[in-house]
C-alpha cells in the first residue's frame, strides 16, 4: 500500500519524514503544474473554490502514479473545506478510479479515530513511535516556515534575489536529507548565517503584510507566486500565517485563536469561521506595527474571507492603511496581477515619500 496527499507549499518534506518514521510507504503527489490545475478544474463543481480544484488535481495525479491510499486534511466545520474529503472521494470514484482508500488526515475533532486508523495501516506502531514521528514532523514544519520567513525578510535587502532563491532550494534539500534534530539545527544556523551575510541593511524597503485564506496564502502555485513577485519588486513581505502557526494554535488548545477573535471584535462581533477574523486581526496588527500596506488574498467565492473583506475596508479607513484585495481562481491572469501589484507598490512608495 502506497499513500499520498495533496500539496501545500513545501510541507510535503515534513510529511515525508512522518510517514518514513511510522513506516508507511509514501510518495509525494507530482508537483502542482498547469495540468494539475486543469485536471482538478475539469472534474470539480463549477463554483467550488480553487483549493478544492488543486487538491483534486493532486489526488488524480497521485492515483495515476499508482497510489492507493489518499490522505486529505481538513477538520470538520471550518468552512466547506470540511466536506471536501467526502465529495472528492465520490468524484474520484465517478472518474473511474477503483480500489483506493481515502482517510482524513489528522482529524482534530476525533483524535481517537485518527489513531485507530493509523494502527490499522501499521499494526506494529507504538504510541511512543508516533510521538517521535510527530516531533520530527513538527520540527521540520517549523524549520520550513522559519526558512521561508527568513527569505521574505532577506530578499529586499540583497542585490540579486535569484541567489537567495538558490540558497533556499539547497536548504530545502538539506531538510529533506536530515532526520536528526541536531543536524537540522546546525543546518538552519548555517543557512541563517549565509543569508545574514548577504544583507545590506542600508536599504529601506516597503513593508507589506499578507493576510487571507490559508491555502492560497501558503501555496505559491495557487497565488501566481505572489510573494516572489513582491520580493522581486523589492518589497519586504510579512506573512504570519503558516502551518506551524496553525499547529501551535492546536497545541495551545485554540487560545491564540481566541486572542485574535477578541482583537478583531471591534470589526467582527462573531466568528466568521475559518480565518476570517484572524485576517482582520492580523491586518490590525500590521497597521499597529506601521507596515505600509496589506494585501488580502482569497480564492474566488471564499465565504469566510468575503466576510473579512467588508471588515477590512473599515480597518483600512480607521488605521489609514491601504488594503489591496485579490481573488484567485484557475483563470486568474498573471498580467492583470502584475499591473495591480505594480500599481499598489508604486502607490505606497509615493505615499511614503510624502509623509
Amino acid at each position, binding site marked *: 500500500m502506497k499513500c499520498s496527499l495533496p500539496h501545500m507549499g513545501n510541507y510535503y518534506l515534513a510529511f515525508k519524514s512522518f510517514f518514513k518514521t511510522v513506516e508507511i510507504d509514501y510518495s509525494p503527489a507530482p508537483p502542482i503544474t498547469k495540468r494539475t490545475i486543469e485536471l482538478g478544474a475539469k472534474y470539480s463543481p463549477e463554483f467550488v473554490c480553487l483549493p478544492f480544484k488543486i487538491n483534486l488535481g493532486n489526488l488524480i495525479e497521485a492515483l495515476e502514479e499508482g497510489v492507493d491510499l489518499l490522505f486529505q486534511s481538513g477538520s470538520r466545520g471550518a468552512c466547506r473545506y470540511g466536506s471536501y474529503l467526502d465529495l472528492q472521494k465520490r468524484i474520484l470514484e465517478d472518474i473511474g478510479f477503483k480500489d483506493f482508500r481515502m482517510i482524513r488526515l489528522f482529524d482534530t475533532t476525533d483524535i481517537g479515530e485518527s489513531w485507530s486508523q493509523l494502527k490499522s495501516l501499521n499494526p506494529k506502531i507504538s504510541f511512543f513511535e508516533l510521538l517521535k514521528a510527530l516531533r520530527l514532523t513538527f520540527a521540520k514544519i517549523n524549520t520550513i516556515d522559519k526558512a521561508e520567513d527568513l527569505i521574505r525578510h532577506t530578499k529586499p535587502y540583497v542585490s540579486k534575489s535569484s541567489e537567495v532563491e538558490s540558497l533556499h532550494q539547497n536548504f530545502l534539500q538539506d531538510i529533506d536529507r536530515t532526520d536528526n534534530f541536531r543536524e537540522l539545527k546546525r543546518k538552519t544556523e548555517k543557512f541563517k548565517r549565509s543569508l545574514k551575510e548577504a544583507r545590506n541593511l542600508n536599504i529601506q524597503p516597503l513593508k507589506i503584510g499578507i493576510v487571507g485564506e490559508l491555502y492560497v496564502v501558503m501555496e505559491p502555485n495557487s497565488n501566481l507566486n505572489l510573494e516572489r513577485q513582491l520580493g522581486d519588486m523589492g518589497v519586504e513581505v510579512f506573512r504570519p500565517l503558516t502551518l506551524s502557526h496553525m499547529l501551535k494554535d492546536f497545541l495551545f488548545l485554540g487560545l491564540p485563536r481566541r486572542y485574535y477573535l477578541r482583537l478583531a471584535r471591534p470589526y467582527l462581533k462573531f466568528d466568521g469561521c475559518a480565518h476570517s477574523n484572524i485576517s482582520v486581526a492580523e491586518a490590525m496588527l500590521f497597521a499597529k506595527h506601521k507596515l505600509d500596506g496589506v494585501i488580502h488574498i482569497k480564492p474566488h467565492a471564499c465565504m469566510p474571507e468575503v466576510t473579512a473583506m467588508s471588515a477590512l475596508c473599515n480597518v483600512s*479607513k480607521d488605521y489609514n492603511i491601504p488594503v489591496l484585495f485579490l481573488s484567485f481562481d484557475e483563470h486568474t491572469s498573471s498580467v492583470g496581477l502584475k499591473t495591480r501589484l505594480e*500599481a499598489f507598490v*508604486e502607490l505606497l512608495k*509615493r505615499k511614503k515619500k510624502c509623509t
Partner: protein
Amino acid sequence: MYLGIDVGSVSTKFALIDENKRLIFSLYIRTEGNPIQAMKRGLKMIREESSFPIRMKGVGTTGSARYLAGLLVEADIIKNEIISHAIGTLNFIPEVKTIIDIGGQDSKLIIIRDGIPIDFSMNTICAAGTGSFLDHQAQRLGVSIEEFGDYALRAKTKVNIAGRCTVFSESDMIHKQQLGFSKEDIIRGLCEAIVRNYLANLGKGKEILSPVVFQGGVASNRGVVEALERQLRTEVIVPEYHKVMGAIGVAILAMETTHKEKEFNFSVIDVDFRTRGFECDGCPNQCEVIEVLREDLVISRSGDRCRRWEVGSLEKTSAFVEIERG
C-alpha cells in the same frame, strides 16, 4: 518635448507635451488587436502631421501592452496605467479626489487625497460595464457609438436593465426591445446599468468624494456621464483630454525621470518587429512563452514561470539550442 504612449486593448493613445506640461499634440487610434502595427501607424502619423521639428527628451509607455511598447520605442520609463492616469489628471485638475476611468477592456477607480493617489480598484473578472460591451451593444442596436450617448439623453421613460453580467444584460435588453420599448429608453437603461455595475464592483468600501473626474473612452458617452451624476448625486467633470489622459501622465513621468536630450528615432517605424509564441515543453506547466524579435534578434521573452527563458542568461543552454534547431 516628451512623448507618452498608452497602448490599451481597444485604442492606442499618443500625447506630446512640452517642458511646461502643456499638451501640444495628441492622437487616438484603434489598436485593432495589433499593438505593434498600431504604434507604428501612430508614430508615422505624428511624424507626418507635425509641422514642427520634434526634439524628444523622453518617452514613456503605459497601458496593458506597456512592456511591448516600451521595447519598441526604447522607452525611458514604463509605468502601469493606474499611476499614469492619476498623474495625468492631477496635472489638469490638482484638487481632484476621485478618478473614474472606464476604458475598452477594464475600468478603474482611483482615490486621491491631498494630491496623492492613496487607493485604487480595478474590475476583476467581468467585462460588463466597459467600452467593449457598449461597442457591441451599439452595433447590435444599429447605432453608431458616437451617437450612443445622445440617444440616452433623449429617453423619456426609465427602463431597468440587469447590469451584473453582459450575458444577462443582453438577454434583458432583447426582452425589453421585444416588449416595445424605444431604442432611446433601452440605451438609457443600459447606461444606468453600467454605472450601477461599476459602482457596485469597484466602489465597494471606497469613499467617493467630489471633485469626481471621469475619463477614458467611455467618458465621451454623455449618457453614461449623466447616469454617473444621477447615481453619485454630484457633478462629474470630464476633462478636455480625457481620452489621452494616461498618455499625458506617462509623458509627465518620463519628464520627471529623464534629462538628457536625444533625437527621437522615428526609424522604429521601418524596423521589423515581430512576436512569436511557443509552448515550453520543459515541464507539465507548458508555459506559453512570447518572444519579441527585432529583425530576427530576440530582445525579450516573457510568460515563463521558472525564468528559464530569460533573455541573456540562457541563450547558452542546450535547451535553447535545441529549440532553435527544431
